[in-house]
């Protein structure tokens, strides 16, 4: 059964901005959303997280999260699900971490509040999480300003998975990073998926990033899903002109020009 299911989800402010998004995410599965700024990919994620910005509403369709129809959830119920069932990381990790608290205490806080762990168990869990995101235990006592961008994103992933969520949304989580660091984070997400069965929603403006990790891809433009299907279909047999443009960009200007196709 799907852990997250969107049926024709529409998001509106004064008028409709996202015009119907449908997908099913299975446990351990990966759905990718590709689109540029203004495509509606972030609003779609925020609708699934129940954190739409002020004034925005889900104006049509339905979202089912771990068997609950989210429209019927109270804000208290939402708070209980966020973190422990669904969690997210975004582009700028520094703005989601408190600069005056150590990394360890911020990871521990999530584990304490959501899992009710105490002292020794809490410390053990925090160190285990740092290890899971390939950060050394020295990071436990460090502050956000002491870490590089890639390390910050790892620390944020550690806080996001601290309460053992079933779904992690990564919205442009690697966009601001160097290419080798981006690959490290994508490798880490793939590892977490394999080792814990975490289901992922990977959102990026770059089709190639999404193609690295996803089973199913949605291509969005101006609030519309213009194409959707298994990654092989999107890459090798795209139907929509916009998808072809995204592929064409890579083939004319990217490494693809040189790489020998197997």
């Amino acid at each position, binding site marked *: 059964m799907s852990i997250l299911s969107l049926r024709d989800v529409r998001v509106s402010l004064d008028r409709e901005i996202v015009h119907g998004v449908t997908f099913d995410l299975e446990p351990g599965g990966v759905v990718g959303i590709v689109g540029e700024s203004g495509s509606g990919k972030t609003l779609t994620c925020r609708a699934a997280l129940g954190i739409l910005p002020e004034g925005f509403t889900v104006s049509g369709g339905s979202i089912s999260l771990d068997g609950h129809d989210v429209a019927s959830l109270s804000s208290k119920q939402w708070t209980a699900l966020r973190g422990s069932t669904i969690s997210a990381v975004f582009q700028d990790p520094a703005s989601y971490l408190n600069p005056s608290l150590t990394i360890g205490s911020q990871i521990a806080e999530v584990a304490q509040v959501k899992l009710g762990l105490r002292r020794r168990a809490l410390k053990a869990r925090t160190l285990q999480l740092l290890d899971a995101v390939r950060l050394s235990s020295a990071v436990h006592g460090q502050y956000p300003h002491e870490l590089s961008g890639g390390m910050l994103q790892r620390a944020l992933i550690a806080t996001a998975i601290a309460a053992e969520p079933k779904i992690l949304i990564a919205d442009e989580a690697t966009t601001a990073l160097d290419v080798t660091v981006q690959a490290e984070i994508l490798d880490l997400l793939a590892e977490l998926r394999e080792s814990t069965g975490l289901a992922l929603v990977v959102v990026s403006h770059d089709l*190639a990033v999404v193609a690295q990790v996803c089973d199913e891809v949605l291509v969005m433009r101006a609030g519309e899903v213009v194409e959707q299907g298994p990654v092989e279909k999107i890459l090798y047999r795209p139907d929509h002109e916009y998808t072809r443009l995204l592929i064409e960009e890579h083939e004319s200007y990217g490494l693809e020009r040189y790489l020998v196709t197997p």
Partner: protein
Amino acid sequence: MSLLEISDLDVHYRRRTGRLHALRSASLSLSPGETVGIIGETGSGKSTLARAILGLVRPSAGKIVIDGADVAAFTPRQWRELRRRGTVQYVFQDPLRSLDPDLTIFDSLAEPLRIHGSADIPDKVHKILARVRLEQVLLDRLPGELSGGQRQRVAVARALITEPRLVLLDEPVSALDSANRVQILELLKQLRDAGTALLFISHDLGSVAGVADRIAVLYRGEIVEDRAAASVINEPAHPYTKLLVSSAPTLRSAAAGRAARSELRNLLDLEGASA
């Protein structure tokens, strides 16, 4: 003869914690009409290299010969003279940095020509705008009233208007969306084909690969590789270049190479520790 010849360039920065060696005997040459990509990530020294070529940091050793003159030893006055000639121009990642927010697009484009003492300024401004495919109505606007892609095209136009022989581009497409990125890269290709030498600095191998004849890879202040673009990408020699190539997201290599990347990372960490 080379248009730009950098040899054994060293740059140090003084830091509270001691001296930071930002560039270590970097050597690079660029012939007229050639496009060279410099690939480097955070801390590689790529911005230091750009700043040294523009005379914004003083090297501690080595030579930077532009068009026959060693600029590493230039006085501020000689630098002003070189800039006035407009032989070398630049485009940065954020066009707001190379455009004065209070000048209209027309004045931004006319300024280098006025400094240069050119005639027919309005005519040249109209022509360059057409060349970067922007509409003439934008001339009365301020940079803040343009989209990011339009601003970057204005920055490129401004760099080209003095007909420079060398254009230095520092992450020119990194802040743009895909449609605008394609347009700027297309424009760079046209420039290259028209004989302007380009030094294209970026962290993104993918965007450089489509335009550069040659690629130089900067890693921890050293140029570890400098060969034809196709050969750097297909047969990377240095472990860092291997990691870079295997990390670049492409449409063709889904999820493969995770173990190989992990090995290369370990190898490079060991190298760093012994350096």
